[in-house]
């Protein structure tokens, strides 16, 4: 996983609440068996005027000029700003892969859906929760001054707005540590292999039907 420490970039204002993962990456692209290549199809239904299918050359498609990510300088954005309940719906991690493949390193919203939040942290995409009025302030600043940069600092857990205002956020220590260091979750967990085996031993003793019948 790509580590996240400090990032400075352009913010794209996506003024919608309840942005669902079906909107972030529509279902036809989930047929891919790869982890990469989803960027051109991020927000596909909103970004293009013609229907998209896997394998199409997206550079040849008709773009929707009204959609924020098609407008300069937001087409170069690396931070996405949205309203509440971002990433709701389907658990598809492809939504996170689409955002990172597009070039996003962070998303700021007043709230996130739980599965999306978890998936983000596992892919080096920093999800930052700010209060609604702070998000509103960022929307106003970014819309008044397109291309203004925002700094995201995970070490300090701060977001510095274009006008220099500093907003603080929190992230639980475990996730922060893994993101800061870009750690491989599985290798860390396997350090506790003995604990897992001990649990299984206990389960066989106390709840024998779980193990004995799991083979069907």
């Amino acid at each position, binding site marked *: 996983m790509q580590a996240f420490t400090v990032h400075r970039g352009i913010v794209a204002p996506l003024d919608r609440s309840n942005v669902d993962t079906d909107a972030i990456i529509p279902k036809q692209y989930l047929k891919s*068996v790869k982890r990469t290549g989803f960027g051109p199809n991020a927000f596909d239904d909103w970004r293009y005027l013609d229907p998209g299918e896997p394998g199409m050359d997206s550079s040849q498609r008709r773009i929707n000029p009204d959609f924020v990510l098609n407008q300069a300088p937001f087409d170069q954005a690396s931070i996405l700003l949205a309203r509440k309940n971002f990433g709701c719906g389907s658990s598809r991690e492809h939504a996170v892969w689409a955002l990172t493949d597009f070039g996003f390193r962070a998303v700021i919203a007043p709230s996130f859906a739980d*599965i999306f939040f978890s*998936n983000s942290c596992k892919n080096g995409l920093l999800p930052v929760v700010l209060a609604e009025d702070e998000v509103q302030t960022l929307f106003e600043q970014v819309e008044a001054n397109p291309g203004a940069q925002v700094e995201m600092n995970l070490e300090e857990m701060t977001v510095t707005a274009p006008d220099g205002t500093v907003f603080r956020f929190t992230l639980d220590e475990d996730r922060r540590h893994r993101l800061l260091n870009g750690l491989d979750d599985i290798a860390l967990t396997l350090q506790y292999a003995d604990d*897992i085996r001990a649990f299984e031993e206990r389960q066989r003793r106390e709840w024998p039907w779980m193990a004995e*019948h799991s083979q*069907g």
Partner: protein
Amino acid sequence: MAGKTLYDKLWEAHVVREEPDGSTLLYIDRHLVHEVTSPQAFEGLRLAGRTPWRGDSVLAVPDHNVPTADRDKGIADPVSRTQVETLETNVTSLGLKFFPMADVRQGIVHVIGPEQGATLPGMTVVCGDSHTSTHGALGALAFGIGTSEVEHVLATQCLWQKKTKAMQIRVEGELRPGVTAKDVVLAIIGRIGTAGGTGYAIEFAGSAIRSLSIEGRMSICNMSIEAGARAGMVAVDEKTIEYVRNKPQAPSGELFEQAAEYWRTLVSDPDAEFDAVVEMDAAEIAPQVSWGTSPEMVAPITGRVPDPAAESDPVRAEGMKRALEYMDLQPNTPMTEIRPDKVFIGSCTNSRIEDLRAAAEVVKGRKKADNIKLAMVVPGSGLVKQQAEQEGLDRIFLDAGFEWREPGCSMCLAMNADRLEPGERCASTSNRNFEGRQGQGGRTHLVSPALAAAAAVAGHFVEPSALKEA
């Protein structure tokens, strides 16, 4: 000290290790796998030279991409076919339990888990699918995960989790005739909103929930995620135990009785404290129809499409306006004047035998209305289909002009050939009415199987009781 919630009990029984900050390594008993969210996980495992920690915890099945017609011809779309073949190669090379498309036990992963007894009370159940909450209806802790977590569970049999808060949603009293589990859960989401359960595990309780069958409870738990909660659950009672008895993968004989004794403890203690409690009066719940592009946008069938002008919160009003524009609906339109083009009865929410019986009861002796271009019934599994055919339900649907299909996720998310065309309106028993969910530009109205069937017959939304005599 306060007693324990059902969530506390399920959680505590699976803690492998707890860090000082509360991060917990949680043991996973059952891992359900489908073709869409697993290929990258198997690839990751392979690249790292790892093998599954406990292969016998896995049950794999293709469901999202499978065709629901002309199965003997295989999967026409080469991209879908590759994905399904990739699943088969991945799981068979590792010797994992797998129901291929031709197996009568194949079906939607959340239908076949309980059907096979692969999910049992007291288990932790995960799947790379947000509707994994369905299995909570059996008194299990079941939640959806992303692909990185699928790989993590394959490799370690565990997940790092933090215990969430617990919410109890208590629905008390008697449901009115014609009001189903689907209406109850849509009404709940309408009340608490699509983020109302974020950060919580929800226990559905109260006399109205207890009165539901296990299949009805599954429809409710299924849509927990539409209220923002990763997990939804219902306490174990005798209905749960009778449901599990004699299922193929359930324990039998003395071991079953021993298990049942433990399962009976899987209820919240009377003095358990929840972080939030929501109370609803069952008698006030009417059949529901969604009008917008978020599952919280619902109205009773007796109601009207709301007017954004009457909404005081500007962000919310803007969302409503956008939704009505997408749905091509005018404010204040009576719900009964909305006319679908297609009807879809299926999905992990509503494709079990009781759902098909409820729809068939409405359809029996009637015909599909002329304005309905397609009414399709997609059973949740091959075994549900077989059971329905034994009961003659397929004939009822076919005689009425419906299509009777093979099992799969189908037009709930339109990854296979079943989809809406741009602008088409659908009465759907599925779980999500997001923009483009059932096909780009398609418009979804979420309803119960009985209401979907009634809409197919009348050509517009209507309470089944208001239909003319068959």
